[in-house]
Structures are given as C-alpha cells and as structure tokens.
C-alpha cells in the first residue's frame, strides 16, 4: 500500500525553504532615501541591510535576530517536509505543530515591525515614513528635506502564500489522520 503524503504540507515545507533562500537576497520591504540613495534599508526576516552613502552599517543584535529567524524557519520547513512525507506516523503531529507555526510567527512579527517602525520614527523624529509609497519628508525643526520611497516586494506576498499553505497543511492533516484510523471498506 502506498504511503500517504500530505501534499499541501509538502508544498508548505518546500516553499518555506524557498522563502528563506529568496528572502536572503530579495528584501520583503525596502526603504530608500533620496536618489542616489543616501540611506537604504533592505529588510526581510532573514536579512537586514542598512547602508548609508553606499557603506553598509551592521547592527549585531539585528544580525543575531536574522540568524535566529533563519534557523527557526529552516527547522520549521524541514519539520514540515518530514511530516508531509510521513503524515500518519505517531510523531507526525508533533512535527506539524512545530513546523506550521514558524511562517505564521515570522509573518506576524514582520508585519508588527513594519507597522510599529514608522510610528516609532514618527514619534521620535517627527518624520512620517510611508510603508509602501513615496514621499518628501522633512524632520520637525529642520530645513532639510529628502525624497523617500518605500516598497513592499513580492517575497512578502510569497510569505503570505507560504503561511496560508502552512495553515492549510494543518487543516488537511485532520482529514489524513481521520482516514488513517478508518478501517478499509
């Protein structure tokens, strides 16, 4: 008898691993101040790159959080793949429970930061940073202004798809588990 496979879970696991690779090179969100850019921020959960006048500025804590996020997503993706290939094994539910939540946490955390960051900047510097558009910003009390543009890139939307697949995998598991315990007709 052929082993059952949770194809949705398999898709979620593989796409989760693909998402990690993509996010490393293509930011989910990017901020560019002026053109040519004086300040550029390229931000995804696994890679944060801040550069000023072409010079990269590393922030160790952010780097650590990126690596933590990368490892977490990686572990979740592998767990999902292993689960999807053996969804009826006794340990499968544990693996699924471990794996499917990781993309959700990552996406929620990213959205929370994306919403909070402009608010924090607004409060502390008076600069109104858009989330996904262009604007001319002038800090309070300053005579300087700069053109800024922000852009949400396609990996962000891909992350939403991955999250959806992960949730779907969890739902499909219920049916697979149910059919596994039913006696053959």
């Amino acid at each position, binding site marked *: 008898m052929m082993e059952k496979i949770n194809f949705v879970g398999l898709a979620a696991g593989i796409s989760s691993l693909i998402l990690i690779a993509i996010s490393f090179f293509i930011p989910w969100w990017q901020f560019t101040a002026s053109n040519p850019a004086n300040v550029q921020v390229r931000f995804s959960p696994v890679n944060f790159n801040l550069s000023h006048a072409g010079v990269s500025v590393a922030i160790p804590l952010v780097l650590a959080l990126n690596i933590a996020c990368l*490892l977490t997503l990686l572990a979740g993706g592998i767990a999902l793949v292993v689960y999807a290939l053996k969804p009826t094994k006794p*340990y499968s539910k*544990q693996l699924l429970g471990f794996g499917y939540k990781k993309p959700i946490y990552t996406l929620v955390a990213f959205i929370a930061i994306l919403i909070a960051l402009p608010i924090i900047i607004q409060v502390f510097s008076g600069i109104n940073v858009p989330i996904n558009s262009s604007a001319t910003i002038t800090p309070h009390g300053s005579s300087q202004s*700069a053109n800024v543009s922000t852009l949400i890139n396609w990996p962000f939307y891909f992350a939403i798809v991955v999250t959806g697949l992960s949730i779907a995998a969890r739902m499909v598991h219920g049916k697979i588990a149910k059919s596994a315990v039913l006696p053959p007709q």
Partner: protein
Amino acid sequence: MQMLRLVLVLITIACIAGPIGTVAIIYRNNLSQMVVTPQLQQLFNSNNNSNNNGNNNNYNSNNNNLPNNGAPNNGGNINNNNPPIIGSMNSFGGSGQFDVTTPNNQNAAGIQANINCLVSLNGNNIQLGLDLSPTSVPSSLQSTFSNTDYLFNFDGTTSGTSSGTQITANAQGSLSSGSTFNLNLSGTIDQAQDTLSFTLTSAQNSQTSITTPQTISLHPNGNNNNSGNNNNGNNSNNNYNNNSGGGVSPVFLSGQVDTVHKTVTLTFSLNNGLSQGTTINSMSGTVEITADQYTIGTVSSNGPITIPAGQSATITVSGALTQNGLNYLSDHYSHVASLDVTVVNGQMTENGVTNQGAQSQDLGNIALSW
C-alpha cells in the same frame, strides 16, 4: 513522544537563544554596541551635524580653512555647554600636543592633533571654536578619541595689554562617551594678530582632563578672514553652509550682474572632504540687492555635478535679471560698477537631500556691468 516534544522545544530555544547569546557574549563588555555600533553612532553624529542650523554651521564653513582641509567636521562627538561661535571670525591653524586622561585611563597620554581655531570678538567678550583633528592617538585612548574632529566651544573675556589681547576662556560639556570636561584656556593674540598662543588646563572636576604640556601657537589660515573684503565673503559663505547636508561646503568665488544680457551669474567652489564621491544635484536661490532688499532675479545651477572624494569643483548658478530688477538697477545703480548682493531662499540638493536656506546669505560685492 515526550522526548520528541522536548527535542523540538530545545531546537526552538537553540535557534533563538544561540545567535543572540553569541552576540551578547561577543559584546559583553559593552552591550550597547550590540545595537548602537560605533559605525552607527558616527552616522547619527554626521546626520545631527547636517541638521544643525545657524551658528553651529558657521563653524562648518570655516572648515575650509582647516589644516587638514576637507576632513568632515564632526563636532557631534562633543556636547558643548557653551553655544556655538557666532559673528565675524578670525581663523587660526596649526598643530600641537594635548595630554589627556579619561576615567578609563588615568595615566596621561599624548594626542597629536591638527588645530583650527575660530575666534569671534565682541567687545571684551570672546568666543573660540577650538577644533582638534587628532593625527596620532595612543591605543589607550582610541576607545574615546578617533580620527574625527572634536569641537570645543569656549566662552571668555579679553583684556588689552602691550603684548596683545589676553584671553581667558572656559569650555564645559561632555564627550560622546559621557565623561565630562571642564577646560580653561589662557591665551594671547599678538598685536599684529598673526599669532594665537594658548595653553589649556582642566578643572579638577573634569572626568576627562585635557592639558597642553607646552604653549601652542597658531597662525592665521591661508584663507584668512582678517583681510578686509574677505570678511564679508566668508561670512556669507558661512551662512550658505548652514545648509550643507553632506559635508560639501560651497564657498562663494565671484559673481556678476550683466545688465546687457540681463543675467545674474554666481560662481561657487565646492570642496568634497568626504571619503566618497558626492553629487550636487542642484543649487538655487533668489538674488537681492543687499542694501534695499530688492529682488533682481533667481539663479539656479545647470544639471547635477559629481565631485569625487577629496576633490574640488566649481559650480555656476545663473539666471535671468528680471525686468523690474533691471529697471531698479538703472534707476538707482547706473553709476556704479559693483553692488552688494544677498542670496535668499538658498537651496542646495546634495545626493538628493535638499537643504533649504534658513536665512539670507550676503555674498558681498559683485561686479555690475552696463
């Protein structure tokens, strides 16, 4: 099952705690550097500096006269209690040694530095902007001092003597490390005003002590503000530089109002003292007759100009003389060959960052041709 659950929990903890813990261990001696690295601090400082307006930037303009000409002024390394220097200034330059002790290093160590000192006299009151650009810093002090500029704002009084002008001034504040300084300057500007000699001592309550082991003598910089007409020009340049955002300071060179061709033309020199190339996207402003505050035209540059690191360029801003301006000049200035002009609403866009002039900029006397 319990074992698997435990393993998964441990994996989760390891994934998160591992990288963060590693970084925390690496930076255990200075946890704040996990977030605010020196590189980031420098970025904040340079941005704060570029956001300054008014007198503080008067100082920046005179960095053109620094012995280490072109080094970006980074007075942001110091929080001065005294206000920045204002008014017309003389500029002295040279080099010298300073003995420094800090809370972390109580053994005095010598720092060699290039020195640029701006002096503003107002009656018996004096302000000095003492800018130190370290050229040699002992390793024991490198956590506190780097090769950027340190600007100390002194306030004091003067008294005239047969040997020149005696100066007593004081500067207080704190370094970026947080340690305080309280410096007393005792100096003399000789009668010919071609030497500024001074010594520094530190008050006992200073956490960071800076003293001069021997008297330091400075001499007027090449681009001396003392000389008559230069005063006007330099002051105007100072104002223009209020708005320099990226470290490039335009210095006014020459100008002309051509009534025949109905044009106003101004030429500026731009020195890029930054470590990377910079692009001046545009410069513009409105030209007024200084005495009458009468607008005669607007000027703007032609296209962007890129200045490689450490190099200079000239930029010409020009525009049409308005008909009203021409009529006004014909009515009031037809008998003169030059006139004082002021640029108002000066604006410079550097690397896409637009700096709007906060005040007018007196360019001094420029040619008026008929």
